[in-house]
């Protein structure tokens, strides 16, 4: 480990700091390291007070999202070799900061739950009827949108999330759309009412940044804009179809 890199990391202790500040660490790095490895080295060897979230180290849990050189990044996935000798690491943009690189996630959880991310049936299938049947073609209609790992890089990239607090956001809408497109689901109307509510999908303004940063190629921009069409159709058919309360 002969190469050194300098990390400018956001620090914030709510008990001591008025506002976030930057602390600099120069450390030796291994050429095979990801950004997360460097952060763990700093925490383990230099400054145990550094707080950051991480878990799987293999880009499936979504815990380690941060702003690296100003871009939303999954730090376990991004090689250090792609960066220069000085790297900035900040907490995810658009989220309140709890401490250092840790952000408040409850706001996301509220939006997430509001889109009812579960199979909704008008009447539950009786056990005797067996399992739902779904063809590969039906699965393909929503499978891409089920790959989200809730890393929230998309929320950090989205200019609408930055400016409109009520906006549901890319991941929540993509997940709601995933269920709307699931052949087993019968709750599209309920979700479309949420999509036309305060968190309205129509706030999306085609930045496409969410899809640019998504590490799992979910393409939330596609989901959000497909959801707009479905929401309009649901609204329009509401004038001719009487829907009972589900």
């Amino acid at each position, binding site marked *: 480990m002969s190469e050194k890199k300098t990390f400018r990391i956001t620090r914030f202790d709510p008990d001591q700091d008025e506002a976030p500040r930057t602390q600099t660490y120069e450390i030796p790095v291994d050429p095979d390291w990801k950004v997360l490895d460097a952060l763990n080295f700093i925490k383990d060897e230099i400054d145990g007070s550094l707080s950051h979230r991480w878990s799987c180290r293999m880009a499936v849990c979504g815990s380690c999202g941060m702003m690296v050189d100003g871009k939303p990044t999954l730090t376990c996935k991004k090689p250090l070799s792609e960066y220069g000798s000085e790297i900035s690491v900040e907490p995810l943009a658009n989220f309140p900061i709890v401490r250092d690189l840790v952000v408040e996630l409850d706001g996301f959880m509220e939006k997430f739950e509001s889109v009812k991310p579960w199979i909704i049936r008008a009447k539950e299938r009786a056990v005797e009827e067996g399992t739902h049947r779904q063809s590969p073609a039906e699965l393909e209609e929503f499978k891409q949108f089920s790959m989200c790992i809730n890393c929230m890089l998309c929320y950090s990239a989205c*200019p609408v999330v930055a400016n*409109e607090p009520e906006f549901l956001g890319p991941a929540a809408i993509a997940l709601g759309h995933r269920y709307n497109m699931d052949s087993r689901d019968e709750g599209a109307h309920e979700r479309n009412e949420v999509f*036309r509510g*305060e968190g309205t999908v129509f706030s999306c*303004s085609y930045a496409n940044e969410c899809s640019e940063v998504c590490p799992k190629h979910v393409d939330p921009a596609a989901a959000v804009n497909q959801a707009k069409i479905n929401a*309009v159709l649901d*609204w329009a058919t509401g004038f001719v179809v009487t829907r009972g309360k589900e």
Partner: protein
Amino acid sequence: MKHLLLRLEPVIWLLFGLGIMVGTMLMTAWIAVVGLGAPMGLIPADALAFERAHALGSTLIGRVVLAALIALPLWKGAHHTRHISIDMGNADRDGLVAPLLYLIAIAGSVLGIAAVVRL
């Protein structure tokens, strides 16, 4: 006002969608010929002579196209100008900005229809 905007959102979005798609297609031709070609002398002088222009514009399809040319870009314009305001940090004033912009689009659309009716 916010509640009213949310209820009208599907209509606004449809008009915006038509504006960005059909409006862009129509405007490409309009700008190229009326905005640039004719003033720069690149098209035959009699192409937009009054008699011809009026005759074409007075047909049913002519009136529809001209009305679309006026109205549809206004809805794309109003919707995106609203986004500019929000992007600049004025989301809390959206209850004032959005109705103002959409009223401008409505006014322009109504005037556009009036303009083609009186041809």
